[in-house]
């Protein structure tokens, strides 16, 4: 392919925000600690995430054409900035690996119980690498192709669940049984870190916009749409499964869909749900992978294609470190969230304060 300025449009950013945030979220029931109030926890998380997003947008607005790596280098100086930049790339790679592992487990659980996980995960990482080696424009074309289909499938599923399913909104009561405090604790910082704080990756993507400035409108619109969607899905799952089942099941959305199996013609909607999860995970994995490649390419002044294979191998290899699904799950909702706080909140806030101080002086 010819080397030319890679540019992405507002629509592509809007779609990517939605698809990226949906990502692997339907795999879990977020805010499970808040029981039937998990949707409130989601809302609080989303609001907090919104404030964080405003910080990201503000930072980007100060220098619309420089990516997060450049901003870090400018903020912390050449050496420290590069070091932190590399850490960020590793963090992106780590997040990408989490999605790879998620998919490996999903494939084992639902699709191919007898096929070894190393094969499914290898295929998965290769697809991401293939897309990235084709360039940013191709990566950002994918949501345009996938999101409409996914939205259609979600719409069909939701309609079926609402009309034929066992939706019982009384399961959401009593609201705020133990006051607001446990709900806030469930939301902060866990739900902020996953998935809302992950909007951080867009600091690597906004500079690619095909217009001047920062795509504030499409980003925020996408963020609101997807927040509402995720909160609604949370409510739906809770209303179908009830707090006891929903918070303990491995794949709550799949479980909800399975409640529809009483009807002959739609015996198993597993297929649809699995496809939705597969493509969600794929996009999220690919975007993290993409940002890792882009970041390291900027730091080393080499082309992105050079780094696709080494980083792909790194992601693939690291996905074997965790022992089993239980450990993967525990790390994901435990230590991982604490690391997230550092990368998603602490460092950006540090940069923000630096920029503010510099502005004043």
């Amino acid at each position, binding site marked *: 392919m010819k080397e030319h300025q890679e540019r992405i449009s507002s629509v592509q950013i809007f779609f990517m925000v939605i698809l990226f945030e949906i990502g692997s979220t339907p795999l879990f029931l977020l805010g499970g600690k808040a029981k039937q109030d998990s949707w409130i926890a989601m809302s609080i998380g989303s609001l907090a995430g919104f404030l964080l997003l405003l910080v990201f947008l503000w930072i980007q607005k100060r220098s619309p054409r420089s990516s997060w790596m450049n901003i870090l280098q400018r903020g912390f100086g050449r050496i420290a900035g590069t070091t932190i930049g590399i850490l960020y790339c590793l963090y992106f790679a780590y997040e990408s690996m989490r999605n790879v592992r998620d998919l490996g487990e999903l494939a084992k659980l639902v699709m191919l119980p007898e096929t070894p996980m190393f094969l499914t995960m290898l295929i998965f990482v290769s697809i991401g690498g293939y897309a990235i080696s084709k360039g940013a424009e191709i990566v950002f074309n994918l949501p345009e192709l996938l999101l409409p289909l996914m939205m259609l499938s979600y719409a069909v599923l939701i309609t079926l669940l609402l009309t034929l399913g066992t939706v019982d909104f009384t399961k959401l009561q009593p609201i705020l049984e133990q006051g607001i405090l446990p709900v806030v604790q469930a939301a902060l910082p866990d739900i902020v870190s996953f998935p809302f704080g992950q909007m951080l990756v867009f600091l690597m993507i906004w500079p690619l916009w095909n217009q001047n400035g920062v795509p504030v409108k499409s980003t925020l619109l996408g963020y609101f749409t997807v927040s509402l969607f995720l909160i609604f899905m949370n409510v739906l799952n809770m209303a179908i499964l009830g707090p006891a089942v929903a918070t303990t099941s491995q794949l709550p959305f799949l479980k909800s869909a399975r409640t529809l199996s009483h009807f*002959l013609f739609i015996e198993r909607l597993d297929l649809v749900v*699995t496809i939705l999860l597969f493509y969600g995970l794929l996009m999220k994995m690919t975007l993290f992978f993409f940002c890792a490649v882009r970041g390291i390419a900027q730091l080393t002044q080499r082309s992105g294609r050079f780094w696709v294979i080494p980083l792909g191998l790194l992601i693939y290899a690291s996905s074997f470190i965790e022992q089993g699904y239980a450990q993967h799950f525990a790390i994901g909702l435990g230590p991982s969230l604490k690391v997230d706080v550092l990368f998603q909140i602490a460092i950006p806030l540090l940069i923000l304060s630096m920029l503010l101080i510099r502005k004043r002086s």
Partner: protein
Amino acid sequence: MKPLFSFSNTKKKPKHEQGNTSVPSSRALTHSLAFNLQHLRDTIGQSSDVIFRRVNEPGIKPEVALVYISGLVNQDTLNQDVLLTLTKHPALQEPDLSPESMLAKMKDEVLAIGKVSECKTFEVLHAMLFEGHTIILIDGTNHALSADTAGWEKRSISEPSSQGVTRGPKESFTEDLRTGTSLMRRRIKSADLRIEEYKIGQRTHTDIALVYLKGIASNKVLGEIRERLNAINTDAILESNYIEELIQDGSLTPFPTIQNTERPDALAGGVLEGQVGILIDGTPFALLAPSTFFSFFQSSEDYYQRFDISSFLRMIRFTSFFVSMMLPALYIAITTFHQEMLPTTLLVSLAAQREGVPFPALIEALMMELTFDVLREAGVRMPRAIGPAISIVGALVLGQAAVQAGLVSAAMVIVVSFTAICNLVIPAQVIANSIRLIRFLMMLIAGFLGLFGMMSFLIVLLIHMAGLRSFGVPYLSPVAPLTFRYWKDIFIRAPHSMMKIRPQIFAAEEARRQSSPSSKHANSSHHKQPER
């Protein structure tokens, strides 16, 4: 069969004639008629269809000779307007005419023919001869005249054989390039319609014509097409596919990036959208470039029927496309890996059918699909008379008997037949053919990795397609990159009155359509279209 033969001939020729002087010499003509004629004889050889005729009329001095190729000239024109006038015209009867003034007289007064030109070298002379011109040589001058007497046997315009419609024009292109350009002129009566001719192929000297609307076709695309046509370096062009393969965007892909059509109305429709048509002499199939993936699902009949039924048919086509690509693979994946997805009763009935079948589903499906492709190929190549025999053998012996013998399950026969029928729904053969190949890959992957493999393969295909370009136009536009206002003619076909804007997918710029695809009356560009 014919093209195959001539193809092998032209391929072999260079080897045979390596030593001979088969390349026309660019030598200039001399003043001696005898020498010129001898040189022509030497270079053309003893071909029986080249006629040398001296005009030995007593009154005419200096001596005159005609050279033409029998079969390429219209005998009537030759006799009436050349031979007869040369011998009987009073202007030539004057005594003591100098060769030069005779040449000038012939060119300006005598010959009753539209296109007469002078040539000075043997190379030009040869070229004219093979175009069907009659060469007039005069003793004493080193100029020759060439008179356009071209006229050869050609097929008349007939109904399209591979792209038929129930409602709409029934004309198709013929092998003759002039007929093609005239059909286009008849449809688009605009001064903006431009026809640019090229000669490609060092031996076949095939005429190629670019047809486009100036101001609507994008200059970038035009420049790219011209550049690629000029870069072609081959000795033979016998069919449109030669050009297609030589100018398409290089990457290896199963997907076609250039459309072909034998329908003048389809070509006109494309040209009106800003595409560039390429007509090729010697084949009724014209090319349309650039093309997107979605162009292959548009049939010209979509615009001749009411929009609701057209939209419905479009959706049927897209569904058929996916069914044709994935149904056998889906069957394999579900019966091999995901039985739990089927309703219990269906599962039981499938299991009962498969009970006696000795092969795994993958082998069973591959066998049946290959059998179908063999049958299909046999159907294309066989003589008409044995057609019914093939259908009986195919349907009864291979279908029914194989099921009764327990070699394949009845469900598999249904799957394979439905897949085959779906493949035939797609209006453009080229894209239907590309999924015939993809289907086999899909089946193999489904056999080993089930649905997971299928989903992965599908996304790889999507990534591949998103990266394709046809003369700079993204292959999946307007879906990716997304331009929602251009969707009126993609998955549905909106009423003509609603398609007021010509999309910028192919065209140079987004503009109000000067005319809707079906009507040929040009309105001024800012007029509102009359509401229907």
